[in-house]
């Protein structure tokens, strides 16, 4: 609910309550005033009649039966309300009446009833009430209309701020530039947001700089180490010392691993920082074929068959580097954690990419396979970042990533759904306590 709708609701509720109360009070008040006025008039008439009797003159004969009647039999005295039938209009008309006893010298007492029609006062009441109610109704309507108008005019700066926030993209490395509206609260809000965005941009920039510098500063000494080790390996003296060369080779391999680890971490942090915004339309099927060809020696060396089921799809906008990394890590994972003589099946459809392979059942929480530095075999040479990279890339593009294990055939499947994550369709393939192990 909008803030203004909420406040409006309270205002209208309050107004409606007051409106009902006001109507009741008005009705009772006016009714009371009118009746006491009528009673006063009847009282005046009574005094006049009594004065007339006291001065010895006879009571007048009734002319209008409805307004003045005489009775020789006792009647309850005092004020009361009654209805009389109007013989001409054939309707019951409310009257107020005053009955009193008149004592005349030498004559039996007579009960006089004075009546006054209340019809006029009803109309009066109606007129007053309708005027009042009309005015109050208009007031209520006015409140709603004015509030609606105010929401458009007064809250416009807020809406503008909101729109700018919605369109805000840290990638542009620009702080928000919000105007200072006349309303103090909005001005403060804008100021706070501008300040916040400036800090965000500064932090983001320094992080980016750090990532770039760290990558650069680490790769350079590694490059020196690696080049020098490689030169060292060329020394003729090494050929004579059978033990020294493998030591150097191990050292050389270690610098390579360190460099690869660093590149993977750098890639992860760059994905997290969202530094891969440029996307070009990519034909995933062609890319998979290309990758498969690149990895063919690995497949051959392990005697693995490759089954590709690639649907021809329209190109999908992706960052080429990320797409390459995604496919590489998925395929590599399937090759690495395979069984001898097994296979790698890649299925690309309009809504998902599935890479599956047979492999040993492994225990653990499937959700944790994607964590950094998780690996199936602690002694493995790889740093365990492959699936973490896959997960980051999927998260970056909003793809769902699911791991499924089918006990029949012991197949591990990694499924990248080009859409939000879905639960596995059949209970057989539900994510089980098994995994293809992190890279």
């Amino acid at each position, binding site marked *: 609910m909008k803030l203004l709708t909420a406040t409006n609701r309270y205002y209208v509720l309050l107004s409606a309550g007051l409106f009902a109360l006001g109507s009741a009070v008005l009705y009772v008040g006016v009714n009371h005033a009118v009746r006491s006025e009528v009673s006063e008039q009847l009282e005046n008439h009574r005094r006049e009649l009594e004065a007339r009797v006291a001065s010895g003159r006879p009571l007048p004969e009734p002319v209008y039966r409805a307004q003045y009647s005489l009775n020789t039999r006792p009647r309850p005295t005092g004020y009361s309300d009654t209805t009389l039938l109007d013989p001409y209009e054939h309707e019951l008309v409310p009257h107020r009446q005053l009955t009193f006893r008149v004592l005349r010298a030498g004559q039996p007492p007579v009960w006089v009833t004075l009546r006054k029609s209340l019809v006029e006062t009803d109309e009066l009441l109606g007129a007053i009430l309708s005027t009042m109610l009309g005015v109050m109704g208009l007031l209520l309507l006015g409140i709603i209309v004015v509030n609606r108008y105010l929401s458009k005019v007064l809250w416009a700066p807020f809406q503008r701020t909101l729109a700018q926030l919605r369109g805000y993209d840290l990638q542009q490395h620009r702080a928000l530039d919000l105007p200072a509206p006349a309303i103090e609260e909005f001005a403060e809000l804008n100021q706070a947001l501008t300040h916040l965005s400036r800090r965000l941009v500064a932090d983001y920039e320094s992080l980016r700089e750090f990532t770039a510098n760290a990558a650069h500063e680490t790769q*350079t000494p590694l490059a020196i180490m690696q080049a020098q080790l490689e030169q060292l390996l060329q020394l003729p003296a090494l050929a004579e010392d059978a033990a020294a060369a493998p030591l150097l*080779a191990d050292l050389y*391999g270690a610098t390579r691993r360190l460099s690869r680890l660093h590149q993977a971490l750098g890639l992860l942090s760059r994905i997290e920082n969202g530094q891969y915004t440029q996307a070009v339309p990519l034909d995933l099927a062609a890319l998979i074929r290309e990758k498969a060809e690149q990895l063919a020696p690995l497949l051959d060396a392990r005697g693995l068959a490759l089954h590709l089921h690639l649907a021809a799809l329209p190109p999908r906008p992706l960052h080429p580097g990320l797409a390459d990394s995604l496919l590489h890590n998925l395929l*590599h994972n399937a090759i690495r954690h395979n069984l001898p003589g097994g296979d790698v099946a890649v299925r690309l459809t309009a809504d998902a990419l599935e890479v599956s392979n047979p492999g040993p059942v492994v225990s653990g929480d499937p959700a944790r396979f994607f964590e950094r530095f998780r690996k199936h075999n602690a002694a493995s040479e790889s740093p365990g970042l492959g699936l973490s990279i896959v997960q980051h890339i999927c998260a970056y593009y909003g793809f769902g990533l699911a791991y499924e294990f089918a006990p029949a055939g012991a197949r591990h499947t990694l499924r990248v759904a080009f859409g939000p994550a879905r639960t596995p369709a059949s209970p057989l393939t539900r994510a089980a306590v098994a995994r293809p192990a992190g890279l």
Partner: protein
Amino acid sequence: MKILLVEDEPALRSTLIEALRQGGYVVEVAADFAQAYEKVKLYRYDCVLLDLTLPDGNGLDLLRALKAESSTTGVLVISARNGLDDRVAGLDLGADDYLAKPFHLSELNARLRAIIRRRRFQGQNHLVFRDLVVWPEQAEVQVNGEALTLTRKEYDLLLYLLANPGRVLTKEAIAEHLCGDSVDAADSFDFIYTHLKNLRKKLQEKGAENYIRTMYGVGYKLSAE
């Protein structure tokens, strides 16, 4: 063949100089942008090995300067910046190749040779090693005048060895050369072994000597002895 090496890290510079001289190149050195700029304006080189991050400038500007005068000099960028965007920027500006640090010296050699071959001989070059002749543009291999049929990977492997005669090639370097950057070393050794075995067999069937020496625990070497 004359090479200009633009690199600001002294340790890496001296190692590269040594390796390049061993490879038979004449090497000139520039440690910063200003020196490099002066040298490319004054002299002609077959290839420039260009580091992008220099203390007083960006290597890409040097690349621009070279390209502005449509020089025939080849340019091989060596950079610690391994972002795809950096690669694309370098290649778009006209660099012949891009090698991310850290790299294998043997890989550098192979790429350098490819660039110089393309630049100087318009591809009409062939590599000779004893009784072995390779025409890289046609991807043809002959042993004693007889054509040799190799698979793509075997051919790549042979070319890599030929680019680094007498040099020990580590298994990592060979694996990455054949399979791209990101192949983990542990996976690669068995397939290298298979390819090498096949290559040796094919060479020997045509009567070539076994030039490919195994250096146990390290890698392989193409050797005439």
